[in-house]
């Protein structure tokens, strides 16, 4: 992957040079600012990755869905809301804790360990919640029963 990445950089840089032909053609009018602007764009602007931006949107969508699940749990308690809560709660929590790790954990090894641990935790949480929904009273009923104390 290192080699292919290097070749990609090399070919893109070549094409970037071709794209900057207008600048090359008139070196007298050339100025540093323009060249800086031309060159200081990320190498893969031809095919920008939308992953981060899509992730951000997904986080907000999940947050809104979770907001809706609270009144739904009150008005329509049952397996549909139970399993939806299991999924959305785990996902929202997972993504949140992921950001916390990104903010506070530094160093290649620590990050890998922390993120690995988080994935295991989230997987276990989702499994446990689904198991609770399946074999036990379910999340909505459990909260109702707890609150009736």
């Amino acid at each position, binding site marked *: 992957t*290192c*080699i292919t*990445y*290097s070749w990609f*950089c*090399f070919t893109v*840089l*070549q094409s970037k*040079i071709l794209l900057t032909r207008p600048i*090359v053609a008139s*070196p*007298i009018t*050339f100025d*540093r600012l323009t*060249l*800086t602007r031309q*060159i*200081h*764009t*990320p*190498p893969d602007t031809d095919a920008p990755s939308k992953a981060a931006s899509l992730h951000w949107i997904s986080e*907000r969508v999940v*947050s*809104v869905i979770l*907001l809706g699940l*609270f009144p739904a749990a009150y008005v329509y308690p049952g397996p549909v809301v139970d399993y939806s809560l299991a999924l959305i*709660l*785990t996902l929202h*929590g997972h993504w*949140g*804790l992921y950001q*916390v790790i990104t903010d506070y954990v*530094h*160093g290649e090894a620590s990050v890998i360990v922390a993120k690995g641990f988080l994935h295991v*935790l989230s997987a*276990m*949480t*989702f*499994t*446990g*919640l689904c*198991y*609770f929904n399946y074999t*036990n*009273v379910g999340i909505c009923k*459990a909260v109702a*029963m*707890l*609150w009736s*104390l």
Partner: protein
Amino acid sequence: MAAGWLRCAGQRCLWARLGPSLSVRHMVPMATTAKEEMFQFWEKNTKLNRPMSPHVSVYKWSLPMMMSITHRGTGVAMSLGISCFSLAALVLPEQFPYYLELVKSLSLGPVLIYSAKFALAFPLSYHTWNGIRHLVWDMGKGFKMLQVYQSGVLVLALTLLSSAGLAAM
């Protein structure tokens, strides 16, 4: 490392194409991505063993600062709480009503029960209301300093009211 070598090769290519009329001063290094620059920043920090500049110990605490870290704190706490509940669900032998009966048999006073419910409802309420505040910010609204403080106070008021209300149910 190979990328660094190719960067040098690329630079030389660039110089050749742009011709001798441009001085060396105008040459700039090949672009790095934000991710690469972040990584280099942290590597340099660790290598030089730089101390972290004082932040929480030095800056005057403001309401937005406190509310922000509380939002994170309540989020983390609830997440871990749910994970604990999940683990318990997988590990404990009896069904949920059994353990509820166990708690009921302790005959805890109503004040204690209300306090416990309040303690459970508070982080949920706070995180929910402040979460809505975050979503409003994500829509691009409410960034003026006065609005930030106003929405913050509103969130706190709503939190206290809803926590008290939920605990009473």
